[in-house]
């Protein structure tokens, strides 16, 4: 599960294409325009490689960090069905990280380098996972609505131009559809359950609404850089479009359950678009830059896990092993 990558569009478009072979660039763009996929050993513009690595890597980090908020409840899931399903779901998130890191490796960054960038805070991951899962209901809201948002993002990205990323996302989307059903089933169970259950799921929804609205990121700056990334099919949809799509699909389902979305301005207007209170983007930036309630914990936990596993990995390392980047 995942939100949108924080694509850095600060660089000037002239700079990003500087020094590229014009003929190869033209061939590359023609291939993408024809709807053909780019494969790892193909020639590609530097900026294409850079942004894809950043995006896929962040996506991978989001999966492995995303295993933590729900993992909070893995030892406490109520009943066999929930216990088994939550284990399978968190396991899938780990599996997704594996698939995504593998896709990023094809572009030339090793998994070690990616993990190092995660645990030192150099790389970002989806901001929502810097919020805590206070109750079982929080884990249920995450499983439903964060995964719903992730599917919207991932279905769009699966149509992108880079072959290995698209292949990983196809597999991920299949598994996410189980997550979404699982999450919905959980939320419906709570919302149609006892007063205590209703109360806990409403409280969780209220807590998670602002991070959910942050999930797709702020409105895209319309820059020629963004335009290039969309032309290269790296960025597949605007953040606002994805947010609209999410609201359109899920707000009615939330209202169906008689739950209250904590935004008085939320409504569908005549042209079919949703009006909402502009999310607090200052808070979003603050959390991305480390100021969220769980940033420190998430990274500390990852460092702990890497450190505790190190002797195991070291022991099995053989001197004749040789790494070559995977090519598919």
């Amino acid at each position: 599960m995942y939100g949108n990558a924080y694509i850095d569009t600060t660089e000037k478009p002239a700079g990003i294409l500087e020094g590229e072979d014009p003929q190869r660039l033209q061939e590359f763009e023609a291939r993408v325009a024809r709807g053909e996929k780019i494969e790892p050993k193909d020639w590609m513009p530097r900026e294409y490689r850079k942004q894809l690595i950043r995006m896929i890597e962040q996506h991978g980090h989001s999966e492995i960090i995303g295993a933590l908020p729900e993992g909070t409840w893995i030892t406490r899931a109520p009943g066999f069905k929930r216990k088994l399903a939550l284990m399978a779901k968190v396991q899938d998130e780990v599996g997704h990280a594996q698939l995504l890191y593998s896709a990023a490796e094809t572009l030339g960054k090793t998994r070690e380098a990616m993990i190092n960038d995660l645990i030192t805070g150099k790389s970002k991951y989806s901001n929502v996972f810097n919020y805590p899962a206070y109750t079982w209901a929080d884990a249920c809201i995450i499983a439903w609505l964060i995964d719903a948002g992730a599917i919207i993002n991932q279905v769009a990205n699966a149509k992108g131009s880079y072959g290995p990323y698209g292949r990983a996302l196809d597999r991920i989307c299949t598994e996410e559809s189980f997550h979404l059903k699982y999450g919905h089933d959980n939320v419906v169970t709570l919302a149609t359950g006892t007063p205590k259950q209703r109360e806990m799921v409403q409280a969780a929804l209220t807590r998670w609404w602002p991070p959910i609205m942050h999930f797709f990121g702020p409105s895209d700056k319309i820059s020629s850089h963004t335009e290039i990334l969309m032309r290269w099919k790296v960025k597949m949809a605007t953040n606002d479009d994805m947010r609209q799509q999410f609201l359109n699909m899920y707000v009615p389902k939330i209202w169906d359950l008689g739950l209250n979305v904590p935004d008085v301005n939320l409504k569908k207007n005549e042209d079919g678009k949703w009006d909402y209170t502009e999310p607090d983007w200052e808070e979003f930036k603050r959390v991305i830059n480390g100021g969220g309630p769980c940033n420190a914990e998430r990274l500390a936990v990852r460092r702990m896990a890497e450190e505790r596993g190190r002797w195991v990995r070291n022991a099995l390392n053989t001197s004749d092993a040789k790494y070559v980047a995977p090519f598919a």
Partner: protein
Amino acid sequence: MIKSLDPRVIRAAIEDSNPIEPLKEMDQWETYEVFHQKKRGDQHMHVGIVHAPNTEMALLFGKEQFGRRGISVNIWVVKTRDVFTTDYEDSDIFETIPEKQYREAGGYKVMDKINKFKKGLGPKD
């Protein structure tokens, strides 16, 4: 200690600051390409890679990462470095000119000849 809502994290008793040495090269071992067969009779298909320290573990890992939903009956693994590929740069070697009909089934139109021949025989008595 790191505070957490996760009892597992509390049990791990993580110091507030726990800087670690960066992971070294090869920390995650090398990679194996994984191929699976969906059912007997099918071709094996490439499904992805696993990082593993040896072939036994590559098989153990491949089975769970790619076969845990019961969609495989068999797995192959091979070290990535033992796979040789053609270059996408050379993908034009796969392009063939349309005149090479002689190796396509559609290049042989025997029914035309048979029909013409039958017509020539005239009506039977």
